[in-house]
């Protein structure tokens, strides 16, 4: 799950949500533009640097990435074995590292796999930076400016608000089931999956009950009393934001130009 917003005064916190979103878009675009792991590795380093300087708790990121590791390894294997040597323009990348029976494992394929992994890394880190530094209300206001109805934005906000609640609920249900003899998440695959049914059903029943209560509580708080609502903090672009947005656009343009010169491929 994403890391929650944490109020602080870091330089990223002070930026406008639109600047950050554009930043996210330009970084991911650039990483998708280049196939070479070298460039993607450089971008990864830059994003990690930002992440460290704003004081994000690293334990949270470890938690997001940990379950992805088997997928990463799978990706490296698949790309290594499935990309034939003739796919690559550079000679070194056509090298075959080893073969499994008749199927060759190419260096280029392996490097491409690394790029794919790094792209995921980059997206996880940049989206973490955004969620960690931006209050959800700002993101909602950005959506509102794009003329999305505020009810829709409200659904997203409430959904996010309830993520920790549901996590806690599912923990409590697991504990209650274990306490009366249920083995949850152990044994073979099928046994493991079926053991989660005893968690899932109470969780669904409980969510239904909660959503009913939530609807009542919304009415109690006057939701929908008027056609619109008061915005508390108007999001505002400062000079710094304009400058950074401009730089971000330049970065994308330059990246496109470099790529068109056939640099950064495999």
């Amino acid at each position, binding site marked *: 799950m994403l890391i929650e917003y944490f109020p602080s005064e870091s330089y990223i916190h002070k930026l406008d949500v639109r600047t950050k979103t554009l930043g996210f878009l330009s970084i991911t675009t650039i990483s998708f533009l280049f196939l070479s792991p070298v460039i993607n590795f450089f971008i990864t380093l830059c994003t990690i640097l930002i992440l460290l300087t704003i004081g994000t708790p690293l334990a949270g990121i470890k938690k997001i990435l940990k379950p992805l590791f088997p997928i990463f390894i799978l990706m490296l294997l698949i790309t290594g074995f499935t990309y034939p040597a003739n796919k690559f323009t550079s000679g070194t990348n056509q090298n075959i590292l080893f073969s499994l029976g008749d199927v060759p494992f190419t260096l280029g394929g392996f490097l491409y796999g690394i790029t794919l992994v790094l792209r995921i890394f980059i997206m996880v880190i940049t989206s973490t930076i955004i969620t960690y530094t931006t209050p959800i209300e700002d993101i909602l206001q950005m959506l509102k400016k794009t003329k999305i109805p505020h009810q829709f934005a409200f659904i997203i906000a409430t959904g996010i608000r309830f993520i920790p609640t549901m996590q806690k609920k599912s923990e409590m249900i697991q*504990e209650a089931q*274990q306490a009366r003899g249920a083995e949850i998440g152990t044994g073979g695959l099928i046994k493991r999956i079926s053991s989660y049914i005893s968690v899932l059903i109470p969780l669904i*029943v409980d969510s239904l009950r909660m959503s009913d209560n939530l*609807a009542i509580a919304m009415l*109690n*708080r*006057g939701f929908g009393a008027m056609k619109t609502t008061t915005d508390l903090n108007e999001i505002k672009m400062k000079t710094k934001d304009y400058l950074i947005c401009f730089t971000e656009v330049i970065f994308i343009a330059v990246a496109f130009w470099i790529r068109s010169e056939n640099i950064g491929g495999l």
Partner: protein
Amino acid sequence: MFEVLERGSIKVDLLRFKYKDSLTNIFNSLNFKIEKGEFVGLMGRTGSGKTTSMMLLNGLIPHFIEGEFEGNVYSNSMNTLRYRIQTMSRFVGLVLQDPETQIFGITVERDVAFGPSNLTFGKEKIKEVVQKSLKAVGLEGYEKRITSELSGGEKQRLAIAGVLAMEPEILILDEPTSELDPAGREEIYKLLSNLKKKGEVTILVSSHDTEEMLTYADRIIVLDNGKMIWEGKPTKLFQDVEETKRMGIRPLEIAEIANSFYKNSLLKADSEFINKNEFLQFVKNNLTSFKSSHNGSKKNNLTNYSPVVIETKDLSFNYQQKDSALKEMNIKIHKGEFVALIGKNGAGKTTFSKQLNGLLRPTSGSVLINGNDISRFTTAQLSKEVGYVFQNPDHQIFSATVFDEVEFGLKRLNLSDEERLTRINNALEFVGLEKFKNRHPFTLGKGERQKLAFATVLAMEPNILIIDEPTTGQDWDGTNKMMEMLNKLHMQGHTILMITHNMQLAAEYADRIIVFSNGKVVLEGPPEKVFYETEVLKSAFVTAPDCINLSKELRSYGYIKYPVSINEFKKDLLEEFIWKGNVN
């Protein structure tokens, strides 16, 4: 004649209301009035219609919860039939149970602003009301805090602040204190009484708290079966012990004393006492002499000869990135003991209990059950020996019938069909659910679902039972029935650990009390010892039951006994004190 209703008043003139899919009427001629500025308590058994009647008052019934509705309800002089719920919400603030589903904002400040911004208050105005409401509930300085990280008591106060920020004329709260410890409960009532003093709001609160209702409410309305069966001053209600019991309300301890004095014709009807001062005044005026007798402890003291079944050795525990939740606990619990774990919310009672069946594992130190280190066993394996009954039964019910539900845990035990059947039937019979065997669990009432959850644990036949807050949210009858069951198990030789905020129950039923504070045991011993340690209890934010505080006051008259329940105290008062007009 046309009646003029004042703003801030409530008038219910309901002929009947029936849910859409229900066969019978929920309400049959419900009529009551509340004046502007009153503080009214709504009492009655679970299922008597308290919550439903609160939903009448801002139009949730019949606008959101539909059904056959005949009659009129006026809140703040507005007929609820004519206005939308959202419009009513501006004037009638309703705080329901479960604060969790009433919090919308990610931060405290944003959450409180949710209501006013829906009502399109101006920006400056919103800032002002947010500050004002946070101050009123004692959450100043919490503006930027993340709502999901608040404690239960803080969430409850936030829910109230969120409604206060809409500046309602009428404030309605449904059991706002049921999940709180005594200190938190006191805070909520103080807050309400401050609001009342300012004269800005009319307050209606439903509750099972007898003492607080006596202290804070101007008037009590008692419901039963969707009808108002009693209405009047709280002193008048609680003086009549038999009547309160009949209406399913826990009687006041002092009133019980007065009642027994009255029955023994030591008290005239017009000189009854209802609070501590009146009682002490009575003692001063009417006590003639005192027969002293020596003190003897009557509770079983098992600590000397019974084998140890639970032992923790230097048990410490901390949650991630937080300071330690449990600090070097060394506790021994003997076979057949009934132990009550008390202390304020967050003191470590539940965290400690979860170590005993492996739901949490110690950061350092060890837990021994029957002399075996449990670190090698899973919670499921331990469930045969250590049963754990959670507070919320809905967190475990998932089968289609009551029978299947109880069978669930047994499936893994490799029992013979016969043995399994016997166990299920025994467990269901014990909690009194045998006639519901084939029913769907969710068609049962909340109290019955709680019994079902209890039965599922009992079917595992554990020798040790841990019960987390067995009486929270239960009315007086439900509480008594639950305690009867626990007592019966105790008599059968089970070791029982009960986590509770109800000091009367702890004092009356437990052999031993363990007081938690900040992850440490600050006091332990039999109730007649623990509850008389005033200073330590105070530092742990625990309040002793009324009868204990009263008996301390009688020390100056030569009374030296340590009663822990109202019945013991009553007996002493009648047998060892000699009163004016006493024939002996």
